Structure formats: C-alpha cells, structure tokens
C-alpha cells in the first residue's frame, strides 16, 4: 500500500470538510471516513485486482455505512460525513483522461474511458443508496424488536 497516498486521502478529506463547513468536532472523523473509503478502493483494485467499478461500489458502500453509524451516534445528518467521505472516490483522473483523448481525436479510447467514468460515478451513487436502504430496513427492524 502507498502510505503517502493514504495519508493524503485523510488530509484531503479533512480539507474538504473545511470547504463544506462541517462542524469542527466532526472534521477528524470525516477525514477517517474518507481514508477508509480510499483504503478499501486501493486494496481491492491494486492488491486483489478487482474491477474499478466494483471496487468503487464497495468503497462507497463502506463510506456510507460508516457515515450512517457515526450520524446515529453523534445525532447529526448523514451528509456531514458522507459528502466529504466520497470525495477521494470521485473519478476526476478518469474524466480528465477521457477529455484528453477526445481532444487528441482518439474518439474510441475517449468513449471507452468516458463509459468507465460514468459507471464509476454510478457506482458511488449506488453504494450510497444500498447502504441507506439496508441501514433503514435493518434499524427499523431492530426498533420493532426492542
């Protein structure tokens, strides 16, 4: 694992917390959420050679689930944690490469990269959704039992 990148993901997520004006006491935990997402993503793609889209889905699911837990514990909206947490997963580099290929008239390569970019963006969204639906169902059941 690339440790510089890991620390960078933690600090970058915290910096985004400042940009989004998150409450001061959640800055640190927000950074940890972002780092966890990046860790899942890197471990899956680089160590286990799993498809980029699947890895993003798993990472986004992890980020969202941890955010839900923190939100319940600290009684705050989920978005405080999840919004900056998913930032390291955003396919900025891929979008850039897509555009670059299109400018250089490599339309086929551009289309290929563009499709992956869209799929990754969709995977982030679906990771958030899955986690939201699961925690919602699970927690109402728990509440009904007790």
């Amino acid at each position, binding site marked *: 694992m690339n440790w*510089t*990148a890991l620390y*960078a*993901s933690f*600090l*970058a997520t915290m*910096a*985004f917390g*400042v*940009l*989004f*004006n*998150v*409450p*001061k006491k959640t800055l640190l935990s927000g950074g940890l959420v972002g780092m966890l997402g*990046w860790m899942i993503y890197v471990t899956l793609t680089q160590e286990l050679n799993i498809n980029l889209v699947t890895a993003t889905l798993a990472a986004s699911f992890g980020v969202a689930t941890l955010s839900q837990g923190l939100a319940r514990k600290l*009684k*705050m*909206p989920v*978005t*405080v944690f*999840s*919004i*900056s947490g*998913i*930032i*390291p997963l*955003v396919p*900025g*580099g891929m*979008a*850039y*490469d897509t*555009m*670059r290929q*299109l*400018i*250089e008239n490599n339309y086929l390569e551009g289309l290929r990269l563009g499709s992956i970019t869209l799929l990754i*963006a969709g995977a*982030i*969204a679906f990771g*958030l*959704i899955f986690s*939201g*639906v699961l925690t919602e169902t699970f927690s109402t059941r728990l509440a009904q039992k007790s």
Partner: protein
Amino acid sequence: MVKTPIGEIIEICLLAGKIMLQSGAEIYRIEDTMNRIARACAMTESHSYVTPTGIFLSLQGEEQDLEQTKFLRIAWREIDLNKIVQVNEISRKMSEGELTIQQAHDALLSIEKAQSLYPFWQQLLAAALASGFFALMFGGIGIDFLSAVAAGGLGFLLYAKANRRIEVKFFAEFLAAFSIGALAYFFSFLGLDIQIDKVIIGSVMPLVPGVLITNAVRDLMAGDLVSGLARGTEAFLTAFAIGSGVAVILAVLI
C-alpha cells in the same frame, strides 16, 4: 400557554427551511424539519413542498378557518453543513419541548445572520492543500504537491471572486479551470519538472460538484424527482464547465 398567531409560526418554519435550502440540505430533510416544527407549534396539518429554488408551506390551525399558505423564492445557494446541523438541533429540541417558539425564532435568526464557520482564508488554504493532497493521491511527488497547491489555490480564489461578480456560476467555474490549466503549463514552461496531468487533476478537485451529486442521488431516492433532476443537471453543467475550461488549454497547447 399563550397562543402564537399562525402567521408567526409560518415565519419560523419558512426561516428554518430557507436556511437549510441555502446551506445545501436534501429536500426530504427540509420538508421533514418544517413539518416537525409546525407540529411542535400545535398545528393540526402542515404541507410543505420544497424545490431547489423555492419553498411552499401551508399550515392549518386547530380552528377550521385558520389556514395560511406562503411561498418563498430562494435565489442563491452555498454549502454550509454546520448550519444544517444547527437547524436540525433546533427542530429536535422544539419537538421535545425544550425550546419555546420565541426562543427558537431568535436562535434561527442568529443562525441566519452568522458567518460561515471557517473564514475565507481558511477555506482558501483548505482548497489549496486539498489540491496538493489530491495530486499526491494520483501518484504525484513533492514538486507536484507544491504546484498543485499554488494552482488549486489560485483556481479557488478566482472562482470565489468571479462567483460574486458574474451572474452565471458556470462561467466562474470555466474561468477557474482555465486558469488552473494555464498555470500548470506555465510552471512546466518555467522548467519545473512536474507531471502536468496530476497537477491539473488535483487542482480542479475543489471545484468538483461532490455535494450536488450526493444530494441529487439522495433526492431521487427519496422520491423528490423534480429536485433530484434539477440538482443532477446543475452537477452535470458544473462538471462540463470544468471540463471545457481545461480542454481549451489542452487544445491550444498540445
């Protein structure tokens, strides 16, 4: 208990909704908060409808003929999660009866007037550092970090300044992305041994519409289709503006 006139209750609900919408909250959370506050003020029925550019609220008191509807137009929006948390707190305390209506109104008014939690220079610093860290995450090294800090800082500063002057937000984003690309090429022209791609990608990250995308998805899932599509379109246009800003530089210089 002294009865509060329905006009005042509607003001409180709308104020809470306005602060949340202007700070970038999800639609269902805003509607839910306004309904909760109305219920805490002993309204028998409340209906709220929120879109990214306006809020409708209709309240019904205990007497049948006491009914009022009001509409509020929202012109500008920013991202301030701290204010959302604060308004949430107030609505929760009101539901539990810990705050009187008057206290809640005063608290909401002071939240509305408050400056953002972090002053501008801290946000600028955060944007610059975030750019640098992203350059590192994409595989850059020390010199890339420094260039990305400079380019990302300049981009964010230009975006913030232009956003105040120019009516069209997308043009400010285009301008910021364009100058980031130009500065990255300028550094390389000066003879710095940087990886231009990594510097540019890292530096445009603070402009990326992450909150918009997240909120658009959450709105769509909650069934607020109009707002979800509107926010999704805004996110797409922002991404497009950033992309074309960088594309112009690349097309001219390659």
